[in-house]
């Protein structure tokens, strides 16, 4: 039951994040929104893992490992976007 609640939370995060990703004009806020969607998706993976608890494990390790990989990838994406943003915010530089 607690997993279901958190799964629904994940779905809400996805929805809220997607809304932000669409309507926010500034890139930084879009980036935040993307991280929200990502968090929601990972949470859903976590719920999938928790529901699949078996063999004495509190959750299925495969989706958990996938989330760990996914978090690192999402971080790399955020860093890339942040660098682009920082460069674009530099005033008037036109190489």
């Amino acid at each position, binding site marked *: 039951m607690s997993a279901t609640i958190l799964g629904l939370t994940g779905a809400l995060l996805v929805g809220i994040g*997607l809304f932000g*990703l*669409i*309507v926010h*004009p500034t890139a930084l806020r879009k980036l935040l929104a993307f991280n929200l969607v990502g968090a929601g998706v990972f949470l859903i993976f976590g719920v999938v893992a928790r529901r699949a608890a078996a063999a004495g494990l509190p959750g299925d390790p495969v989706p958990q490992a996938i989330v760990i990989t996914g978090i690192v990838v999402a971080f790399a994406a955020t860093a890339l976007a942040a660098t682009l943003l920082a460069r674009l915010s530099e005033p008037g530089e036109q190489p």
Partner: protein
Amino acid sequence: MTRLLIAASFALPLALAAAALWPAMRGRLLALLPVAPLPALAAAILAPGGSLVLTPDPLRLTLALDTPGAMLLGASALLWCAAGAYAASYLATSPRRTAFAVWWLLTMAGSLGLCLVADMTSFYLFFTVASLAAYGLVAHEATPTAQRASLVYMALALLGEAFLLLAFVMMAIGVPGGGNPSIAQAVAGVATSPFRDTILALLVLGFGLKMGLVPLHVWMPLAHPVAPMPASAVLSGIVVKAGVIGLIRFLPFGAPLGGWGEALIILGLFTAFYAVAIGLTQPHPKVVLAYSTVSQMGVVAAIAGAGLVSDSNATPVLVAFYALHHMLVKGALFLGVGVIAAAGGPSARPVFVVMAALALALAGLPFTSGALAKYAVKDLFGNGIAALAATLSATGSTLLMLHFLRRLSRLSASDIEVRPPAGLLLPFLATAAASFLVACLLLPSTGTPYAAVFAPEALWKASWPMLLGAALALALRRSALRMPSIPEGDLIVLAARLVPAIRRLADAADRMDETLRSWPVAGALLLLLLLGLGAAMQLSAGFHPVGG
């Protein structure tokens, strides 16, 4: 040896065109134009009946040379040769002569290859090469008129190819084994194909566009006159014959086709008279000649239609023979216009006489190729109303050609001392002579004896429509009827009205893209697509909740 000749027919022009990549060759290319068609000429004379399979199954690229193919191949090679020599002189100082030569050679390769191929893909290949490369010839002068003409040409040529491609695909579907069938195999299945009527309609549209059947003729009076003189000659003489070859190869002669033969006769004869009527209103001799080509191609289409109706096996040869006559005569006429323009006063007069003979040959003047061609095909039409209309088309031609000669007489150079250069005169005379000689030589292959053509009865049959035409021309002149002024390409004016609408459509596309590329819209569409596709997938799978 013959195989080599067949392959070299289009390989040599292609090789010469490719040589333009090599700077040292570029300057010499124009002078080499008359040489390029020589293998084709040799092949037409030496190799009829030969065939050559370039690649085995499943590609099946095949070349073959039958009698109609050889006729058209030989005649086109002759005209390419003469017009090439003419061009070498006519364009010797043009700054764009290399580009001209490349387009010329590519068009040549396409049109010559078209007479030789026996499989569907290769036919489409050469058809495309011929019609797209001719774009370069139309656009050569780079004037606004030429730009407009080449744009219209291009649009309609591409449309024609699209029709043909669809028709070919539908024909190939019926052939067992699929892949790239030979034309003969594919044509054999047309009559029983479920798509029969669509295929025939698309074929007539595609080839009719190339031949200029009304109302698909609008590009021809724009495109042919704007090209340089030798290019006009090959465009009107040879390139339009791509459509004729198409009809010869792709119409299922000898199979019951309920109504298609009659439809083609009506379309052809309507074109023949319509083009005369519009042509009479045109002031420029080259435009008049272009309308004459439209009219004559209408006659060719009617011949093909009559062949379908009468179920005659000889139809392909007869159509080819008529096309051959028109090819050489029309080529000579266009070349001659250039000669007249370069000749002053006295020197223009003998040229004018030859031009008159050629012009009236189109109407079937006795002792010209026209008389032979018209006599050879007359039996196809039988004795009904179609035969009468076909005969009367000669009257129309006479009218149009007399109009052409009147217009031509005003064209000669103002300086009476000017003499036409030999580089223009000789190719012109050679073509004119060839038009008669070749037709005479090939007459037996159509199954018509010489004696019949020159019998007095035949002479009278050829003459009375012309006399009627001459009388009409005289009456027309006396009546002082003012000809309405109709722009070149007549119906294109209607299409021109669509231009603003098309522009608005394109602007709308621009704006639509702009909207779609705004982030919130694209994002909302992303979600919409997600929900829509998801819903569609659920609905199409039927709703099965997860069970057990």
